[in-house]
């Protein structure tokens, strides 16, 4: 047969967010034929992390998957596709994921913030990829669709003292660690 790409909407094989030890914070695989068990998935993630956490090279081929990735502080974002998939489409999905997360977390892309907003992040990923089909690739649209709480939250009309108060709280916590 030919090496021509199959015209299919199912372009994404998986999306993962790992922490700086290679542990899964969030991971979803959309093609059940790739990994048959959670154990295999996690093994793959460990392996992927090992190969990518030092070299900031943006793309790697592993276990017949093309993985594009991006990292910040203690977070690693991955989007996986078939080995012959158009890498640039995968990268556009990855950028959308990263930028949407960054917008939701107000540029504080780090593990603690992400976990505190895990509900919104999960909603965002659901907006980006529906069962393997890229659903939306504009990070602004994605963050608008999910950042529902932000508008309502008292965060917007916090007084200066409140902000200072919460900043002090946060500082205290980080010192206590």
């Amino acid at each position, binding site marked *: 047969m*030919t090496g021509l*790409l199959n015209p299919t*909407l199912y372009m994404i094989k998986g999306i993962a967010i790992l922490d700086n030890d290679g542990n899964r914070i969030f991971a979803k695989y959309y093609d059940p034929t790739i990994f048959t068990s*959670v154990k295999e998935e996690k093994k793959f993630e460990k392996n992927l992390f090992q190969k990518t956490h030092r*070299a900031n090279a*943006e793309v790697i081929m592993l276990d*017949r998957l093309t993985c594009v990735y991006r990292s910040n502080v203690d977070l690693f974002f991955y989007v996986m596709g078939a080995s012959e998939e158009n890498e640039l489409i995968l990268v556009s999905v990855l950028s959308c994921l990263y930028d949407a997360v960054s917008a939701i977390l107000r540029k504080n892309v780090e593990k603690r913030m992400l976990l505190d907003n895990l*509900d919104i992040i999960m909603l965002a990923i659901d907006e980006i990829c529906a069962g393997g089909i890229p659903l939306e690739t504009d990070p602004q649209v994605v963050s608008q669709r999910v950042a*529902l709480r932000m508008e309502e939250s008292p965060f917007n009309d916090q007084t200066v003292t409140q902000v200072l108060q919460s900043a002090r709280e946060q500082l205290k916590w980080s010192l206590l660690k």
Partner: protein
Amino acid sequence: MMGSFKPAKKDEEDGGGNPYHNVDKTSVLQEARVFNDTPVNVKRCTHVLTKILYLLNQGEILSEKEATDVFFAMTKLFQSNDLVLRRLVYLGIKELCGVAKDTIIVTSSLTKDMTGREDQYRAPAIRALCRITDATMMLSIERYMKQAIVDRAPGVSSAALVSCRHIMKDSPEVVKRWVSEVQEALVSDGVMVQFHALGVLHQIRKSDKLAVTKMVSKLISSGLRSPYAICFLIRIVARLIEEDEAGTDSRLFDFLEAMLRHKAEMVIYEAANAIVTLKRSSARELAPAISVLQLFLSNPKPTLRFAAVRTLSKVAMTQPNAVAACNLDLENLIQDVNRSIATLAITTLLKTGSEGSVDRLMKSISSFLNDISDEFKIVVVEALRALALKYPRKQSVLMNQLADMLRGEGGLPYKEAIATTIITIIEDNPEAKEKGLDHLCEFIEDCEHTTLAVRILHLLGREGPRTRRPARYIRFVYNRVILENAAVRAAAVSVLAKFGAQCESLLSNILVLLQRCMMDTEDEVRDRATYYHAVLSTKDSALIHRYILNPPQYALASLERALVQYLRTDTTAAFDTKTLPTAPPPQEEKKTPSIMETASRPEERVVPSHEKYAEQLAAIPRFARLGPLFKSSAPLELTEAETEYMVRCIKHTFLNYIVLQFDCTNTLNDQLLEGVNVVVEGEGWEVEASIPCPSLPYSQMGSCYSLLPIPEDIMSTTGTLSATLKFKVRDCDPASGEPDTDEGYEDDYTLEDVEISVADHVQRAARSNFAAGWDELGAANELEDTFALAAMNTLEEAVAQITQFLGMHPCDRSDRVPDGKSSHILYLAGTYRGGHEVLVRAKLALSDGVTMQLTVRSDDPEVSEIIASAVG
């Protein structure tokens, strides 16, 4: 209850700041009871639901009861109007619907959200709803789906289209009814909507090539806005070009070329990739695509460089000259920080570079080999193999490199690739044989992979005895008997026997070694040793040939079936092995796809095996008495592609009968065919029975059969049969498939002729040692003739044609014609119907066409005659 937040705070210190670190299933399921409180405590419920989703994502498995309980508790949360909570519920529904029971209960809530005014709900509600709805329930929401597809909000429209695509996996029929809405969505302004609409539309029309062509030409002229949709369109166009062998609409290719100048990089790459992957692209057509990729090579974005070099390395396999223009840019990439890019650049250079650059490239390879993954190491090995075949003079350098790699670290697939490459070099170049065998011998001294050790031993058994000093290999082989596991020991014993059979000087020593093996702890090893010892001790060359060098190769499953059948009859007569089908030798081993190739090819039609056919035919009572199936031909198309009815013919040969199986497909959705039969006529052939296919609805395949006795006279066992498809048509409603009328009318349809050739009576057979088999068969029934094959222009062509025409198996790798030779000898082996062994030697010479001297030997003069006459 409220205290549950506190310990969570504490956990986060242990879990390195992860508040979910110590979440466990039992306690979360307990906490889920909070869902039942009224009024809904939004904050707590959101937190608990997030925990549940987190657990599921970590791979925690809920039992059916647990999932159902959570699911039902979750439905209570529809009372709250908190946006985040509601949308988490949708997520929960999607996650749990695979496990929980009675999920349909939320249909009405979701339908309400889907049709409500709140845009934030509508899109995700549609997606959740389509997950829990089956085909029958789909009818009740059909109206809403149609509206949603053409909704003004792009998010809603996309959600509906994507759900359509998911639904089509199980029930394509429903979505087909919404085709006009999908078409409307295709002209939407939404970037993603256009992409999704195109995807759904293509899926609907996929099987109808004419409709796809129409759709494509319309889209090409109207133009799409979304780069994603354009990438998709490029893939469809590339397929169309590839499938059309005849002159393609040049507008299709022009479109691909125009897309090289699109502003989105993703589209440019997609177009370039399509053009270089198309088999028919000429050098002139390749050039613009290659220069686009060349530009990408120096792009600062690693992904662009990666994509470009990956595609170029693929092209380099088939058209190295086209890529040579990029050599300079590729050399710059050898130092790329991304190791994957560097590896691909080197392997591409290995294919395009000149002989002089090999040594330099070898050096850079060994410098970074340790940094890259096994998969890329395999890519390097494959490149080395190609290089070795291209530049035989560099083989010693390459062989040393490979031997180094063989000693290094690596998994089984990697080691196997290296061993295979060494084996290829050995087979290609007799001078490299001894050196290569030495490397392999050294390797199996310390090889942890059983399969690989067995494979190398087998090779030693085949090649070792024919080298100048076979004795030196005995030590390596016998070491295996002492040191290895049972599978390797058994293989080693077989190899010893092969040495004994072919090297008389070693025979007495081998017998001693075999005698020692008889004490082995494993019975398979003992059995083999005893068997070979007994055969070798007779010193009867015919016996040794038949049972060691060219042992009979029966299809084991058929052998088993025949034996079971035999035991049911009265067993006074001896079991006749002549009627048994021999196992056709395995086809040229399919290379495991490297990461550079398409991994999955789901659409490839699987040809059923001999066994499968045998079972299918045996299940038909009329054919049960025909004896074992001797051979089944490859499917033969009797109609052009894309016609009203499609018929394929498979010829099944039995000892005295041929069964023609006709696989028919009806491609008209407004017709139901009944009593479908294929009538065949030909001189000397009579149809003894035919089994029609009672009913053939649209797009389903049905089979009908004809049974023909094979003429007694062996010379008239080949011929041409005319074929006509006869059936009764009943018009029917395209949508439901229900016939409109009770009455139908008779019709027929002319098919292409069915040819019964010599190959249908011959099964391929392997001879691991052709010369021994040739001598043993003797000249008693030898026939020799000379032919001029004027139509052939190359030796390769002649070899392929003769092999295919006689349906026999090329031995001793004689199907490979070395480059630049003007003469060649082809050795073929097969079994004629009835178990007659046939060997053919064809001496070919190239001079103004091909001249062939054909020598046939077999154990039956008539068989020799028909094989010899077949070519003329």
